[in-house]
């Protein structure tokens, strides 16, 4: 069983990306033997109201059992709390928020309110550190990357909130993990898509120092080749049960609903 917690559907506004349709993502999942993908609506992340993409996302996921929707929630727009209720009712794997792309403070009161609402609803909250390498972004694509301190603030905002952070690298993960209490750190899961493998061996180091319980399989497809997430696991000598935990079983704990 392999679950990709970090996948997108829909066109990317800043450059041409092949394979963004639901059928193309399914084909890539077949190629990489991915059984299930948590999918977000990619263009909606840059819409003034990112929640307008949720209807399409639910409809698409409803037609394909291998997709689990991760709808967007913008805590600065009226009625955002209803989107969390709707997500719970429609079987969403998590809700996502990308504060710096929405133009709201990543460590501000709106995000704290969102954390409390997600905690109360037992709804995991997903955030991306970035979508592309910062050195290649479109000149008008100027949103800040998600800062590590904002994740620390987030998990301190509510004792029940659980977060899934995607596209984080080793320094980011270490700063947040060791800057949190053990209880706070236990409510954070990291996808491995942006963590380097050999010869720098960042993933190996993190699995040793932080523990495999905190990591989940994520690809960032179709913005990134899904082959990379599989390759970096293949380059480790993982016990089968550890690999299974990262590829699927830790997600069960993250969901926990």
């Amino acid at each position, binding site marked *: 069983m392999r679950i990709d917690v970090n996948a997108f559907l829909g066109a990317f506004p800043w450059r041409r990306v092949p*394979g963004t349709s639901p059928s193309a993502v399914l084909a890539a999942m077949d190629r990489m033997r991915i059984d299930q993908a948590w999918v977000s609506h990619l263009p909606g992340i840059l819409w003034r109201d990112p929640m307008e993409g949720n209807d399409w996302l639910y409809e698409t996921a409803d037609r394909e059992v291998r997709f689990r929707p991760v709808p967007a929630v913008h805590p600065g727009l009226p009625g955002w709390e209803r989107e969390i209720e709707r997500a719970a009712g429609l079987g969403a794997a998590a809700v996502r928020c990308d504060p710096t792309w929405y133009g709201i403070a990543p460590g501000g009161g709106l995000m704290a309110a969102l954390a409390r609402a997600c905690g109360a609803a037992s709804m995991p909250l997903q955030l991306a550190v970035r979508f592309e390498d910062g050195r290649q972004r479109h000149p008008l694509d100027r949103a800040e990357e998600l800062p590590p301190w904002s994740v620390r603030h987030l998990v301190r905002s509510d004792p029940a909130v659980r977060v899934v952070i995607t596209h984080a690298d080793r320094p980011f993960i270490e700063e947040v993990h060791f800057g949190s209490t053990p209880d706070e750190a236990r409510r954070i899961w990291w996808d491995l898509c942006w963590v380097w493998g050999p010869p720098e061996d960042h993933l190996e180091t993190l699995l040793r120092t932080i523990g495999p319980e905190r990591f989940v399989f994520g690809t960032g497809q179709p913005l990134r080749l899904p*082959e990379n997430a599989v390759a970096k696991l293949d380059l*480790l000598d993982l016990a089968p049960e550890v690999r299974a935990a990262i590829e699927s079983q830790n997600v069960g704990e993250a969901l926990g609903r």
Partner: protein
Amino acid sequence: MAAPARYHIRRACPERCLDIAPLPDHLPGVLIDIHAHFLHERSPRADWRERNASRLRAGDRVGIRYHVASVLGTWGHCSPIYFPSPDDVTFANEVQRSLEREHPDRIRGYALVNPNYTAHALAEIERGAGEGMIGVKLAASRRCTDALLDPVCRAAAAHGLPILQHVWQHRRQEFSGQEASDGAELCALARRHPDVNFLLAHIGGGGDWLHTLRAVRDVPNVFIDLSGSGVDGGMLEACIASAGMERLVWGCDLTIDTGWAKLRYLEHLLAPGDLDLVAWRNAARIFPSHAFPD
């Protein structure tokens, strides 16, 4: 949180780092990594042995037959990585050659030069070629458009060596720590020296690769090195569209996992014969005939 007892992973052991396992005999086909680096005891990294061992170990797993590598001075310890002093250049090339002697079946080398020291650079190329090095490494000590690179290129041509040029894809500004060149600037150099093959470093290594791929389209002596940590969807398709399979060469640089991912995707994208071009045949064509004897 410490890893639980059930967690098992092979760990690099400093005491064993010079005791590399012999090359396995089950490698799937031929694969040449044209962009590798090795560290050494004068680099600032205390874990240099582990990183070198990890590269070779991961290379074995991926099936890398040859690591074509360079050493960038003292990696910032005694002089800047991209502006290495002559002494550091000489030391780095000696380290590289000692690695080649230590692992003659799997390591080949570029002679690093700093073109700001013309006589020294030419001497390093001469010595490197004489001792079996198979290419020239230009980091980012002087912009490609500068005339100081011309004698380096003429020396490379005289010895039949390709030049691996560090590239920042679409350099929109100056950066501290390096005098970076971008694809368009490398192409200007390549047009001045049509008898030299240039390897445009790490298309996935940062910056706007779309800009680069427009620049190289009609410059036949510039080859795209696919290395770098970037694994953007659409990047490999764009590389093929721009340069064709005959001008793509496979490499890893700092991340073997991303190199392997690109190779796996190319297996899906290309016919087997075309995959061989990228995996090794193009490299075998660019480097001197003695480079890969088998």
